[in-house]
């Protein structure tokens, strides 16, 4: 047990091992706390900070507001934003999940994803929703209504989610809410991997919150820092939640922002953002190196945790509590930080605040003062204990193999780190139509056994300009094995008007989504455990954009040469060359001579 613990702790220290193990367990417990506290409240918000290795910091913002179904149906909105509520009512959307994401979660060094990946999206924008409709056509037209309305609301290109980017997943997504009041639900899923998420998406996101970023933990959200993060994902989830007997339904809207900040990068001042080398006097040098001298230095690795405070990291101060949160109890502790107990944390505020230590002292929560700024200051500190990061149930990476712009192959490598448990999961690919996979080349191998890991396949091939490829595979990966999935694809050449202005950059391919079936979510609810690969960049062959006229002219010339030559032969008669001379009538000369003669008679005749 001890050795296992050491392997996983990111700052291995024998003394801290027990404490670290403890903190891992308590983390799970803490997650449970977050999930269940909100049930009775109308508005709830929380910020959880967790330092990660390599001076990274995970900040998870979570906002939740409830509206009873009855008042929602009467358009009586309190905490639920009216703008979004009316869109959902108009498009008959019963459950909505919207994601804006950037960057890559580095599972190798950061461990398990926040919310088990259930509140995370693929790079760009991802949207899926359950709509009520009588037929597939009606569902699709409502889906278009929804995407167009959301596009306006969030200033994103969601209106570009058309039929070619929409799929209907069969195994990968399950509704999170209680839907026994609705029938004929249709699940539609669309992705925009090319979408660049930026501040214009954050502003409408904040406006949906009751405190609108003016107070509470949302006052820390600043576009400059959020979109500068190593990884960030903003999510909006709307689902109906009912009591045990199916009554007392509420519509729950959950907004969350998860970001991984690089502490060093975030602390750079905004007016001087370029990293510059420190003066040599300020660097701790490794004097054991033989080349160490006054002007040469091998910097020593800093073992101390970097010092930081909230204002510095987020670029703005935390402006006190949002008055709509509960005044006391669990919901009042809106800022929590998950560190080893020995870490020194100083709260800076002029108002009244309350500090609570929970989960074996590994989580400290603060009840914010109302009306005055609040800051947490963590000085630089040499640590003896560290947090254990939970190992993710699977590691997944996907890449394009091959060279040239004609064809290639996709390779997905999925690794199961567990030494004991096999993992069953669903692998979902949603490919653009101009990438044509060959399913007969699909191969899946596991390095430890020779059995085929694919248990079930759902495949809907792409149709040119009408529909993208939809592939779902249910697979089983044995313990401590690596699964390699490959298939070939061909790249289509598009019409020249179908290329974007930066055609030679390539096209983005949406990330693959992995849903784990066997392992239950550690949060204990029906959100599921998800994993997403990174998006891919697919270079397509390009025509020459500068010469449509030239091509039209040249091709037409060749066709005219063929046509002219052949029909010239077909419609004319052959005569001997001498006969033409004798007749004097054939050819251009004869015609001209006749014309001239006729003209002369007319002129002279007058």
């Amino acid at each position, binding site marked *: 047990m001890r050795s296992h613990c050491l392997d996983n702790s990111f700052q291995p220290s024998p003394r801290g091992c027990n404490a670290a193990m403890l903190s891992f367990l308590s983390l799970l417990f803490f997650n449970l706390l977050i999930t269940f506290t909100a049930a009775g409240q109308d508005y709830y918000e929380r910020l959880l900070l967790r330092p990660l290795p390599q001076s990274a910091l995970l900040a998870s913002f979570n906002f939740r507001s409830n509206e009873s179904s009855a008042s929602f149906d009467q358009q009586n909105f309190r905490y639920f934003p009216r703008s979004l509520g009316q869109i959902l009512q108009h498009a008959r959307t019963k459950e909505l999940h919207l994601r804006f994401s950037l960057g890559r979660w580095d599972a190798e060094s950061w461990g398990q994803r926040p919310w088990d990946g259930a509140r995370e999206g693929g790079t760009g924008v991802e949207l899926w929703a359950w709509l009520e409709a009588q037929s597939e056509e009606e569902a699709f037209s409502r889906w278009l209504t929804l995407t167009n309305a959301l596009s306006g609301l969030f200033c994103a290109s969601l209106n570009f989610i058309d039929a070619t980017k929409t799929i209907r997943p069969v195994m990968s997504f399950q509704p999170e809410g209680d839907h026994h009041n609705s029938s004929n639900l249709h699940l539609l899923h669309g992705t925009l991997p090319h979408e660049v998420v930026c501040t214009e998406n954050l502003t409408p996101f904040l406006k949906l919150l009751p405190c609108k970023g003016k107070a509470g933990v949302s006052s820390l959200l600043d576009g400059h820092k959020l979109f500068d993060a190593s990884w960030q994902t903003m999510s909006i989830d709307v689902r109906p939640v009912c009591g045990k007997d199916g009554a007392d339904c509420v519509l729950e809207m959950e907004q969350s922002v998860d970001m991984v900040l690089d502490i060093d990068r975030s602390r750079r001042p905004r007016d001087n953002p370029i990293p510059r080398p420190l003066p040599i006097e300020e660097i701790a040098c490794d004097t054991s190196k033989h080349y160490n001298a006054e002007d040469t230095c091998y910097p020593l690795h800093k073992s101390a945790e970097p010092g930081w405070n909230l204002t510095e990291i987020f670029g703005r101060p935390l402006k006190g509590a949002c008055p709509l949160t509960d005044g006391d109890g669990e919901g009042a502790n809106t800022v929590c930080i998950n560190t080893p107990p020995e870490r020194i944390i100083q709260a800076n505020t002029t108002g009244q605040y309350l500090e609570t230590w929970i989960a074996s002292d590994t989580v400290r929560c603060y009840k914010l003062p109302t009306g005055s700024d609040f800051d947490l200051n963590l000085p630089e500190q040499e640590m003896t204990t560290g947090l254990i990061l939970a190992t993710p149930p699977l590691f997944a990476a996907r890449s394009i193999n091959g*060279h040239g712009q004609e*064809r290639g192959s996709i390779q997905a490598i999925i690794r199961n780190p567990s030494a004991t448990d096999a993992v069953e999961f669903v692998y979902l690919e949603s490919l653009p139509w101009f990438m044509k996979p*060959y399913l007969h080349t699909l191969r899946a191998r596991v390095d430890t056994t020779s059995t085929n890991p694919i248990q079930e396949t759902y*495949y809907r091939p792409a149709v040119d300009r009408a529909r993208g490829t939809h592939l779902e595979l249910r697979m089983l990966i044995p313990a401590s094995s690596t699964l390699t999935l490959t298939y070939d694809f061909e790249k289509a050449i598009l019409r020249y008007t179908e290329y974007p202005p930066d055609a030679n950059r390539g096209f983005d391919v949406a990330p693959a989504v992995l849903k784990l079936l066997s392992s239950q979510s550690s949060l204990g609810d029906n959100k599921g455990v998800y994993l997403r690969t990174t998006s891919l960049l697919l270079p397509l062959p390009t025509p020459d954009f500068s010469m*449509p006229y030239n091509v039209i002219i*040249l091709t037409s010339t060749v066709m005219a040469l063929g046509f002219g*030559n052949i029909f010239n*032969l077909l419609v004319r008669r052959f005569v001997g*060359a001498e006969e*033409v001379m004798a007749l004097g009538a054939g050819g251009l000369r004869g015609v001209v001579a006749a014309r001239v003669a006729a003209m002369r008679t007319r002129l002279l005749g007058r």
Partner: protein
Amino acid sequence: MPIDQQKALLFGAAAAVRLLLFTAFPSLPNLLTGRVEISTPVTSFKRLQEGVFLYTHNVSPYDGGVFHQAPLLLPLFSLLPNPAYYPFATNLLYTIVDLLGANALMHIAESGQSATPRLFKSSRKELRWSSIAIGAGFLFNPFTITTCIARPTSALTNLFILLAMAKASQGAGSTFVLALSVASYLAMHPILLFPPLLVLCYDVRATKSKSAPNPLAFTAFHVLSLVVALGGLLYLSALLTGSWEFLGATYGVRLLLPDLTPNVGLWWYFFTEMFDSFREFFLGVFWLHVVSYVPGLTIRLRKQPLFVAVTLTGIFAVFTPYPSIADGTLYLSLVPLFRHLFPLMRYTFLASSTILYASFIGPAFYYLWIYAGSGNANFFYAITLVWSLGLSVIVGDSLYAALRDELDVERPELRGKEVKRI
């Protein structure tokens, strides 16, 4: 050596070359299958494999953008063992297809319809190659061999076109209609060969029987049997796939060109660069252009129907939406039937060097565009223009020679003299 022995030797050698290439270079078939010059979206063997895979896994292959080939190929190829593991059966099938094609070509040569049809006796009719030589020209043409190794379904289309021609030149009406309907079913455009081949069939029938059959009744009967045969094939396909959606995915794709994968023809780059509002107009114009040759040639060269059919295959190799070198090789193998026209052709050197030039530079320029990145699409496009130009020069030049040959019979006094067209 007796003719049968020669034939056996020729076929044995051709089969040996093919099977040797298949076995000695196991990666060669897949390499050639990937070449755009040989495999087009409507004939590619890899797409056929995908279609068969989907068909055997109960997914409709026509509900997708990959498979655009005729439905009856699916049960045929699903009967063969998987070519990824046991390629021999497929290799043997394609070798046999080539041999049958050569056999049909030799029957055409033996029928003598090229130089001495019913209404016309060429003044140079003694100038001809033996059927063995013509068969060898087909079987050992490097284009034919590469086509066979790459296994596109255009090899099957070529076989049925050759069979239709052979049966028509033997006067076997029903088998000619059947072969032509299969060819049209596979590739659509061979139906345009029906008028000249019907005239050929009528001529042969008239030569063989004492009294010429009634032209109207003859035409009506054969048109009707073509409709019945094609209808039967299409109905069988619909029964097989369970719906009529294969029509859009096969013939619709050939008509409307949604897949712009490069090939040796003129259409793909033209419609890549075409302005959206004119796309439908030019699709119509291009198809009308292809069809316009049929009545023109058939009427003008009424006396030489086989020549019309052969010239049309040459036109298909240039002006259809998805041509490949398989179409070119069919035409180039049929041209030697008209050995008697060679002395009258004026641009043989130019045409043959253009074809050679295009076949060597084409793959190089494609590489520069797609793999090296040092060239752009215009490189390959320019070469397809040269290839098309070369083929259309042969078509035009042989047409000139055929007309000149007719003139020599009509007016023997002009033989060897310079002529003009007025």
